[in-house]
């Protein structure tokens, strides 16, 4: 019986205590941040949308290789040595590669931050931007390369020409080498043959 | 009790069923046992004073290419010692006695190993798929697994 009364009293009392707590909260300052008008502070190193600075990228593709989900697609083109507009990295060093394709599919990205840590030039970075919801999934496929298709075509052509030239040069060189080799061989032969000849002659 | 002592004692008791002790620091040492006798060995390990492995930490299935393997990580709450048992069975007849009756926790672990690797645990009361749907085909964690093209009219690959 005493237990019963105690339980009833406890039930009543704890309800009162709970109500007191909620009542005090009723008048406390609210913690809500009204998002579109006010914003919660986001630290600068927050890992949100990725951003690539095309002028910094040297096309090493280490980000694409480290990416666990393979959401980065990089294609590179070699820079022709006698290209009139030599690509430069912002710090002034010369770049050996054009980056005509640098695509990130944000629908796949897992925002792990591995690509930013392996980047030797700090070209790819996480930004604090997060408001890029879209009505279509295709819009989440972002192309970062600053090269226009014409430029890409031009560079491709240049490279092809260069490669053809190089190939030709190589072929030339190879031919030359072969020639030289054969010449040398011939010479050697010629050098040796007289001996034999001489031997023979002897 | 170290794993060597356990190995010695088990060797004494079970002889041929205990195949060998693999020591490979810094990695874990493990005892390789024959699949048929795993139930008896586990029973001994749980109940014999001195062993008292009352806690099955983990039971994993492995695909070794030609063979399948089940790995048992045991722990004793009382003595705080551990042992690793391994069994190896051929892929075309992957049958291992179930230890579900010894440690109830093995129930789901064994179902998972059956589901993903395809080891059949004999004596398990309800050996059905656990993670994949019941009408799934194939054992996904085998090295030669190929994901299906369609499942219930839904395209699976990206």
């Amino acid at each position: 019986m005493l237990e019963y009364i105690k339980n009833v009293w406890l039930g009543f009392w704890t309800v009162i205590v709970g109500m007191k707590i909620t009542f005090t909260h009723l008048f406390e300052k609210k913690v809500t941040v009204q998002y579109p008008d006010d914003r919660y502070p986001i630290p600068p190193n927050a890992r949100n949308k990725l951003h690539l600075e095309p002028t910094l990228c040297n096309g090493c593709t280490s980000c694409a290789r480290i990416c666990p989900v393979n959401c980065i697609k990089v294609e590179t083109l070699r820079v022709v040595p006698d290209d009139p507009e030599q690509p430069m990295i912002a710090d002034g060093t010369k770049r050996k590669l054009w980056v005509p394709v640098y695509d990130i599919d944000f629908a796949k990205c897992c925002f792990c931050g591995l690509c930013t840590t392996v980047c030797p030039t700090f070209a790819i970075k996480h930004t604090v931007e997060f408001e890029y919801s879209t009505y279509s999934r295709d819009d989440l496929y972002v192309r970062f390369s600053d090269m226009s298709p014409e430029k890409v075509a031009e560079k491709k052509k240049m490279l092809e020409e260069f490669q053809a030239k190089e190939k030709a040069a190589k072929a030339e060189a190879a031919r030359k080498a072969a020639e030289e080799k054969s010449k040398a061989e011939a010479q050697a032969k010629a050098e040796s043959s007289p001996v034999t000849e001489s031997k023979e002659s002897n | 009790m170290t794993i060597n002592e356990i190995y010695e004692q088990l060797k004494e008791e079970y002889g041929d069923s205990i195949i060998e002790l693999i020591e490979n620091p810094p990695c874990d040492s493990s005892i390789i046992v024959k699949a048929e006798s795993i139930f008896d060995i586990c029973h001994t390990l749980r109940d014999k004073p001195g062993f008292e492995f009352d806690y099955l930490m983990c039971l994993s299935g492995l695909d070794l290419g030609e063979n399948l393997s089940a790995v048992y990580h045991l722990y004793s709450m009382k003595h705080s010692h551990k042992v690793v048992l391994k069994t190896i069975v051929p892929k075309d007849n992957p049958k291992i006695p179930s230890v579900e009756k010894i440690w109830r926790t093995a129930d789901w672990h064994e179902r998972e190993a059956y589901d993903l690797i395809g080891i059949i645990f004999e004596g398990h009361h309800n050996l059905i798929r656990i993670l994949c749907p019941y009408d799934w085909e194939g054992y996904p964690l085998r090295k030669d697994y190929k994901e299906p093209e369609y499942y219930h009219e839904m395209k699976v690959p990206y």
Partner: protein
Amino acid sequence: MGLLNKLNQPYEAGGIILGTFEDILNWGRARSDWYLHFGLACCAIEFMAMNASHFDFMRFGTIPRATPRQADFIMITGTVTLKMAERIKKLWEQMAEPKYCISVGSCANCGGPYWEHGYHVLKGVDRIIPVHVYVPGCPPRPEAFQDGMIKLQKMIKEEAIFRKRKKLEEETKIELSA
């Protein structure tokens, strides 16, 4: 009879009244969106955080409902597996029109980190149900959820109820004339 008469007439004749009426209807739907509790994976935790005091999803006039019948939109938050996909389709069918879907997080958008080797993951929830807004992130910040919500509200507000009918009529007219 005035309003009703005008309802039957083409949109232009009904002009302002119909336009305002449509605006009011759209305003109601945009401002009072009840959502279905639907947590699947990691994003669901952020979803809970968004419901919590700091971000307070209810500011947008959303009220959580446990049953699909009373919900206006569904937020797919997390990885949709093949085992789960049929359920989601069912839930979507159970919801009453007009209904919307927000796909949140990489996993729901296209399989996310699991798109390559995930033999049991549905690569994008848009393969089974229509998606109106995609929110990227893995998981998105709570504000990103709300950003998606704002975009959805914007979409609803610009939706055409009577204009659509008008447009349809026009299309049929063109067909008939042609």
